[in-house]
């Protein structure tokens, strides 16, 4: 039996395959297709203090090997989440992590306090990298000073494990990852979507109502792997790789480059079973290669063999 588990501090995950925020709803959208409890964890939809309607339609455009979205964090807010969604989530025997977003540092702090009181949520993913909101979002994750401030403030009130989701829309992601680690984050996840744009030639207008949006899917995978590789060598906290993972082979690239875990995102839209197929494929690969523990391949390409 291959060991697939991993840990962030004392938080244990049965396996390193998680689902990315905003691509897996609250899990229940996928109940007809798979047993969500097989996954190492799910990161549920980005949550804000107040309900948000998100951006106007159209919010999506298909692009080569990927898609642009500008959903803009549509969600029903933390009150609704606590009252109506949280009680249902406890049916899953896996780590349910909440992704939090705000327009001001105080929003993040208030959310972190609220989530810290929820017994069955073991970790928070701090989203400082959403490119689709007018205020806050990516602005927190692209400026070192602001990123330090928000991570510090949230850390002070967050009794759960703190994962910071980094933006790729920066000059040097390593500097940002280091700051997050210095301010006490337990893990970093990367990458969020890349800022992109498409134009509808027939309508002669931007494809998205917001003009620009976040690019996801296999198109961004090489960028994500490069950034994970850089960050994994620069920090001592676990790195969670995200970006265009569709197959087990894609996921393994991230592990070999230094990721301790991965998140499956856009792939779940096309194949709702993508996450479990990836999990099974990772296990097969390790068996075939004669490894007994996934830890043996984390950062494998960076070591001399």
């Amino acid at each position, binding site marked *: 039996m291959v060991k697939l588990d991993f840990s962030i501090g004392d938080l244990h995950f049965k396996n390193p395959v998680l689902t990315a925020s*905003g*691509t*897996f*709803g609250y899990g229940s*959208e*996928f109940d*007809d*297709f798979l047993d969500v409890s097989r996954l190492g964890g799910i990161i549920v939809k980005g949550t804000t203090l107040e*309900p948000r*309607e*998100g951006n*106007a*339609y*159209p*919010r*999506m*455009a*298909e*692009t*080569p*090997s*990927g*898609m642009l*979205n500008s*959903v803009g964090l*549509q969600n029903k807010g933390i009150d609704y989440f606590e009252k109506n969604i949280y009680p249902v989530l406890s049916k899953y025997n896996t780590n349910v992590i909440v992704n939090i977003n705000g327009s001001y540092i105080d929003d993040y702090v208030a959310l972190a306090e609220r989530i810290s009181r929820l017994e069955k949520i073991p970790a928070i993913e701090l989203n400082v990298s959403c490119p689709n909101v007018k205020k806050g979002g990516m602005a927190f994750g692209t400026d070192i000073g602001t990123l330090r401030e928000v991570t510090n403030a949230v850390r002070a009130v967050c009794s759960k494990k703190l994962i910071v989701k980094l933006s790729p829309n920066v000059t040097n992601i390593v500097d940002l990852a280091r700051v997050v680690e210095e301010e006490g984050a337990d893990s970093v996840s990367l990458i969020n979507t890349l800022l992109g744009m498409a134009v509808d030639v027939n309508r002669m207008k931007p494809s998205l109502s917001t003009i620009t949006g976040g690019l996801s*899917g296999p198109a961004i995978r090489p960028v994500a792997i490069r950034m994970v590789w850089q960050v994994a060598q620069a920090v001592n906290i676990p790195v969670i790789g995200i970006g265009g993972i569709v197959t087990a082979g894609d996921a393994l690239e991230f592990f070999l480059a230094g990721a301790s875990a991965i998140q499956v995102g856009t792939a*779940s*839209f*096309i*194949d*709702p*079973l993508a996450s479990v197929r990836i999990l099974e494929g990772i296990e097969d690969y390790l068996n075939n290669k004669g490894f007994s523990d996934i830890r043996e391949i984390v950062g494998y390409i960076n070591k001399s063999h």
Partner: protein
Amino acid sequence: MTKRIEFLRITENKRINKDLFTLELSGSERIPEMKPGQFVQAKIEGSPGTFLRRPFSVHDVNYPQNTFKLLISIAGRGTEALSKLVNGDLLNLIYPLGNFFTLPKKGQRILLVGGGCGIAPLLFLAKYLKSNDFIPDILLGFRNKERIIEYDEYSEAGKVFLTTEDGSRGTKGIVTEHPVLSSEGYDVIYCCGPESMMKAVVKYCRQNRIECEVSLENLMGCGIGACLCCVVETVKGNLCTCVDGPVFNINDLKW
């Protein structure tokens, strides 16, 4: 209704005209019960530029033969690839998805209004109504007589009225200009077609206090309520066309 991911076998690919074709699909297992208005998300193979699945309304269902049909308009590379499928090819679907048209009340006078490829869910609806002892009238609008499709199939389920924009057959003009709308005193209208047509029908129904449901065709990412890309503005806020629709009562729409 439980959603499935399944490979279905093509049993017929029938070209209707230059732009439209129907795919008949058969399951190796018993096909699930489906309702008019529901749709499938088809995975497209053999089209490198096509990343996401494509949604199509269920057009017709034949439970005894264990088959159902999709009516597809060639609109881009994805649908172009589907048009090349031949008997025996497999198509991966997530289905059945979305909500469905609600049955009228006994004694209500019913009209189905559709145009172009938007007539896709209406054939299934017309047959379903007939099997539930409702005889609907059906008003179909096309650009010209060459574009008219499946007239005979619709005629089997109800009385068909036609409009063409150039007057080459039926009444000249658009569907809302057809005299049957006002002469028959309909209680319920079900509509699917181009957005401009649906908006005109919605306006007519509001002015004349007629109950109306429309089936929307918003761009979709996942089809299962996870990506929140296909939203429509409603009195209840932004709702997903894929799980809260595609069928909406016009009282809920902010059109």
